């Protein structure tokens, strides 16, 4: 087997799962990047639907993989890798995954405080916007006038968070029905 000193890397079923979901998120991300946006930073963020679905179906670790792969591969395909757009996207994704992680494990420790797709989605959207805004302020435009945009951005994040949350809820229902509700873990 190993005469040539080559190493065989075996893939787990979870690797395939993550790859499929990430591919879906990346496709949505790329389609969405073709849409014009009224204000820099405001975007529906529909790729978040996938991250929320993965979080609720398979847990936080898989969701982090999908989110980071989405940012990395998405930027490589669009051609924004290591540009300011990429930095903002990465900062937003990191902040939103941190917030989701905290909420996910907190709601697991306190079963009476369960969180569903709507809550996770709104939380992720808000954290994403805050992370992105912090990066923009610290790295790109350190001017106090930038704060005048923050209320608008956060309002947009709330609206899009609610919409993606509803889409994610519908999607999770369908996936659970198809797999007879037994794939979590």
């Amino acid at each position: 087997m190993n005469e040539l000193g080559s190493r065989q890397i075996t893939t787990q079923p979870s690797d395939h799962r993550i790859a499929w979901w990430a591919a879906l998120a990346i496709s949505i991300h790329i389609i969405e990047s073709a849409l014009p946006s009224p204000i820099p930073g405001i975007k529906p963020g529909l790729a978040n639907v996938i991250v929320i679905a993965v979080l609720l179906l398979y847990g936080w670790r898989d969701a982090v993989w999908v989110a980071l792969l989405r940012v990395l591969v998405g930027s490589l395909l669009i051609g924004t890798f290591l540009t300011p757009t990429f930095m903002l996207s990465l900062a937003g994704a990191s902040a939103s995954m941190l917030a989701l992680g905290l909420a996910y494990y907190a709601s697991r420790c306190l079963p009476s405080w369960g969180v569903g797709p709507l809550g996770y989605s709104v939380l992720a959207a808000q954290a994403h916007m805050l992370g992105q805004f912090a990066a923009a302020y610290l790295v790109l435009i350190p001017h106090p006038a930038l704060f005048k945009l923050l209320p608008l951005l956060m309002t947009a994040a709330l609206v899009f968070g609610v919409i993606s949350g509803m889409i994610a809820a519908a999607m999770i229902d369908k996936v659970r029905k198809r797999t007879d509700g037994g794939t979590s873990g």
Partner: protein
Amino acid sequence: MVKIERGDYLILLATALLLPWLYFTLWGDQRAGEYARVLVGAEQQALVSLHQPQTLEIVGELGVSVLEVLSGKIRFIESACQGKQCVHSGWIGEGGEVVSCLPNRVSIAVLGGEQRFDAINF
């Protein structure tokens, strides 16, 4: 419809509180002053908070000037001068605003808040 759990309500409530707070602090009027400094000539006679309603009597060159502080603003009510320009100037309350009674040498300047001007010359 989407099933909403307790944690969802907590997150939505936090957002519902965060957004108005953001609008209020970032879009609100930040020019309101905090304190008023009262001078007679170049000497400081009083430094009063604009949030504490009170009436002040300041003794100037000609006599007494009466000042009133009410809900974040201050004004001259009466002054021992002839023209009463100071009284007619009315209320001031934004950072950097100044009213004075030149004959009586009494002047009030509002401190704190976002300054509209860098400097004022007379």
